[in-house]
């Protein structure tokens, strides 16, 4: 027992990752609830009314976190898909598959809340400008990834086909991010960037960042739940799944 380092590769197998994910899920739900309630409190009761947009700007507290997560989840999904393609590890493809619906949900929410923000502020639900169009393409990439995988019966082949689609689609993420710089768009520029001070009030910024953390924890929790279901589905024939207490006994 001299080796005290955790062997991370041990968790690369579905059999050891399954119980680990099960232990982590309640913690991520707790963090999601904690950040979510704090963020909502700031969003509605601490952050002041905007001098230009009145109360309508409060949509920012879900719009920006959803948009960030839609891009971030795509990168993580493509990372897992690429890893599966390169190393042929079983768990990677399952991780990518588990992330896709949550990413699609975030992409949809960014479009939906964007439309509900655009209508009162710009006077239109939708315009075909660079930011909105590239965000719509991201949503379609998620849908395409899910549909392609669902169309292929063999799970490992579905993983490989999906991985190629996911990797090609990565090109869209910097296009979304920089679209407000590269083109003249109706959409405003970045409110928060690494290179300059944020252009918004401190309480608004904190509320937004805490909501982003809440969305992040939610995404991890729900993706871990989904990956556990996928592991059971794909490993249904194995002895270790048949020996699980939730399969053997009456407990669920």
């Amino acid at each position, binding site marked *: 027992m001299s080796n005290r380092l955790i062997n991370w590769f041990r968790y690369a197998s579905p059999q050891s990752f399954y119980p680990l994910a099960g232990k982590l899920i309640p913690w991520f739900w707790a963090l999601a609830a904690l950040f979510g309630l704090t963020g909502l409190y700031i969003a509605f009761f601490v952050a002041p009314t905007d001098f230009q947009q009145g109360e309508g700007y409060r*949509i920012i507290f*879900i719009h920006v976190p959803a948009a960030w997560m839609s891009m971030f989840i795509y990168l993580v999904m493509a990372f897992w898909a690429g890893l599966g393609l390169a190393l042929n590890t079983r768990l990677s493809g399952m991780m990518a598959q588990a992330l896709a619906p949550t990413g699609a949900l975030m992409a949809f*929410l960014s479009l939906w*809340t964007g439309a*509900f923000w655009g209508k009162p502020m710009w006077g239109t639900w939708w315009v075909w400008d660079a930011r909105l169009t590239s965000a719509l393409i991201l949503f379609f990439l998620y849908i395409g990834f899910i549909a392609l995988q669902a169309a292929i019966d063999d799970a490992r082949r579905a993983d490989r086909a999906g991985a190629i689609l996911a990797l090609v689609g990565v090109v869209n993420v910097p296009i979304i991010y920089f679209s407000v710089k590269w083109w003249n768009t109706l959409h405003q520029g970045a409110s928060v960037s690494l290179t300059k001070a944020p252009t918004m009030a401190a309480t608004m910024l904190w509320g937004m960042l805490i909501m982003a953390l809440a969305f992040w924890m939610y995404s991890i929790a729900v993706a871990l739940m989904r990956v556990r*279901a996928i592991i059971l589905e794909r490993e249904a024939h194995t002895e270790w799944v*048949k020996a699980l207490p939730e399969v053997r006994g009456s407990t669920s």
Partner: protein
Amino acid sequence: MNWGSAAEFFAMGGYALYVWGSFGVCALLMIAEPILVAKRRSNILQSLRRERLAETLDNHE
């Protein structure tokens, strides 16, 4: 505190449709997704249990 009354809060300064339309759909989807995933889990567990039961019955013959 931004709001004088609950009615003022729900009115959102005239932006009620847009603010609640955004937050409402967001909440709805974020409640629905984990429920659907939990359903997916209970479906696969149920079929695994059935399979196991079938195997046990086969072995008794």
